[in-house]
């Protein structure tokens, strides 16, 4: 099991201009760990992160898009796995931060926590590649190679809460930051 913030810090170290779409706890931590105008957190409703990411990936096939999804969030939008597999964006890396709970909403366990295989669901939906990581050193060692592979790829990150980061829902959903994202993406090659 990895501390989520440590896991995100590894991703931040390997990031080379990729767009990052993040939801809930991962988003609250990511905006502090890796601030950037190319962070997209304006998902608006639970479960929708993977779908926003698909739209961005299809609109900018020249840019790698990484989505930091949650396990509860993905369960709310499982059909998106099939939609993404069918659209087959080569530039989409779909990370699921599996903490086994609705952490933002009181820490209640997700249904069938610990027995659902998110990589199994993704494979069955048609994702060509999937990975699971529960060791930080393995994640650090493999990430560069995975970032160079063609997507869509699903990565199940087995995480638990690490350090506390201040929550800022206003920052996550503010359309002004979304507009800054649009401008930054327009400039980004």
């Amino acid at each position, binding site marked *: 099991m990895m501390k989520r913030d440590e896991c995100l810090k590894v991703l931040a170290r390997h990031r080379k201009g990729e767009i990052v*779409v993040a939801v809930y706890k991962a988003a609250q931590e990511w905006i502090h760990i890796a601030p950037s105008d190319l962070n*997209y957190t*304006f*998902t*608006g*409703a639970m*479960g*929708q992160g993977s*779908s*926003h*990411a*698909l*739209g*961005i*990936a*299809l*609109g*900018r096939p020249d840019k790698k898009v990484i989505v930091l999804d949650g396990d509860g969030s993905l369960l709310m*939008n499982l*059909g*998106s796995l*099939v*939609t993404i597999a*069918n*659209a087959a964006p080569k530039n989409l890396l779909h990370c699921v931060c599996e903490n086994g709970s609705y952490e933002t909403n009181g820490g209640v366990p997700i249904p069938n926590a610990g027995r659902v295989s998110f990589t199994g669901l993704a494979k069955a939906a048609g994702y060509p590649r999937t990975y699971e990581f529960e060791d930080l050193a393995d994640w650090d060692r493999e990430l560069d190679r995975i970032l160079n592979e063609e997507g869509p790829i699903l990565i199940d990150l087995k995480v638990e809460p690490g350090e506390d980061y201040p929550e800022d829902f206003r920052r996550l*959903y503010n*359309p002004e930051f*979304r507009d800054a*994202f*649009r401008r930054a*993406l*327009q400039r980004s090659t």
Partner: protein
Amino acid sequence: MAQSPLQAQSIIREVKRAGIRFVVALPDRTTSERLLKPMLRDQELKVVQVCKEDEGVSICSGLFATGQRALLLIQYTGLLDSINALRGVAVEGKNPVCLMVGLLGKEPGVPPAQSKKYGLRIVEPILDAMGIEHHLLEGDEDVAKIAPAVEQAYAKSLPVVLLVGREPV
């Protein structure tokens, strides 16, 4: 006065004229045969098929973030199922999601609010309550509403719903 039939080719032409190149869709019997199937064959349009309509609200928003224009083509039942996404993603998130929504089973020439079907009667009042602009496409003269409605949605960065009141020919 009898309305001229809604022409599918006119609708597709106007959708393109509005700068839309992505169509995100889940089939609806009102629009599948004359709109979605031709769109799937159209080289100028990229169709993204979804499993559930609320995915489409977010995909269109993601496309907007990249500077692309999109249309979400669904049935009214899917609109009703996507109300939270429309609330959070489209309205509060100020995303110009443009929906084309088939009113399956609406009686020709009858305003949706006067339909015998409960599900159809509630569509416009719900959109009004949410503050979402909507237009009814019932005859071919209505297709002229499409491009200005889309332009207005992008100008205001707010959603718009185009209700397809009968099966196009």
